[in-house]
């Protein structure tokens, strides 16, 4: 079975662990880059060179960030993003009340319509509970789910089994049948 659905404790924000300078203040997003290019014909905004995106819940680092823009609303139309593509040494660090997690890959695509992030290019997710790899790792922010597809591998330290949610049955094991 190529598809493995994991309810892997994906850490979508509850309360944060306090303001760090690596995260933007609540309700604010900051983007730093070496270069910015806005093409109103193709409706794209491109940040290149040491791109850092600071969100209240995460920090994203990559070589190139492309945002596809669209206009919504009528008279008071505003520009919103329908897709974000992060490319080149993508790293996403997330901090929540349940701990921290880091995702790595060559490419990450965020779809605003589904609020999902798909990591490809040797994607890897590292949390306290272990490391998850696969051909594709999809983070569903709306449903707090993580999905890995293709060559999925999960490596968990023994200590992870002692953590809440991974409790073992302390009853005596059933005797083998004769």
């Amino acid at each position, binding site marked *: 079975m190529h598809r493995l659905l994991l309810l892997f404790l994906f850490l979508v924000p509850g309360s944060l662990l306090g303001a760090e300078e690596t995260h933007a203040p609540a309700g*604010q*997003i900051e983007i730093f880059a070496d270069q*910015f290019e806005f093409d*109103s*014909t193709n409706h794209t*905004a491109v*940040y290149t060179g040491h791109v850092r995106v600071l*969100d209240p819940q995460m920090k994203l680092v990559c070589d190139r960030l492309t945002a596809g823009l669209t206009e919504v609303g009528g008279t008071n139309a505003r520009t919103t993003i329908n897709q974000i593509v992060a490319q080149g040494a993508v790293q996403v660090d997330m901090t929540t009340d349940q701990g921290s997690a880091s995702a790595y890959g060559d490419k990450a695509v*965020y779809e605003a319509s589904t609020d999902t992030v798909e990591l490809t290019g040797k994607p890897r997710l590292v949390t306290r509970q272990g490391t998850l790899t696969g051909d594709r790792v999809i983070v569903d922010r709306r449903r707090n789910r993580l999905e890995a597809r293709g060559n999925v591998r999960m490596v968990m330290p023994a200590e992870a089994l002692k953590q809440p949610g991974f409790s073992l049955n302390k009853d005596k094991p059933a005797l083998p049948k004769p």
Partner: protein
Amino acid sequence: MTFRRLLPVFVASLLLACRQGMQGAQTLPSTRGLPEQSGVAGAFRVPEYYDKENASKLKSLLTGTAAAPQSDGTLRLATVQLVTFDLSGQTNLVFTGTNCVLDARNRIVYSSDRLEMRTGDERLYVSGVGFLFRQTNSHVIISNQVHTIIKGAPGPLSTLP
């Protein structure tokens, strides 16, 4: 009005200033042909109004200092500020920059100095060092130290310039 729509207005306003500036006056006439006076030597003020029934309403106001025509036909502005307005008079976008070069022939505006752009509602702020605006394809490039702040975004990166 969105950033996408504001960009051509911005470039057009600057190039309009360039064209008028190269006609010889350091104090530039308004877009309606009425000269604007300024107490600062080399200062300019270029208001632009909406068309037809909204002709009394200000669309943009370009101000700056030390507009100096260059030998290559460009115009150098020591300081420049462009403010655009919607029909209700609310500020849409505020742009500030220094040492801007306006090249009307090639329809570009550029500077190696710092620029700042912010929307009137303060939801979006973009700054950087060194920029190029190209009117032909409504392209803007900021070359260094780009910093964008987006406020009031409900989700990740929900709004951008």
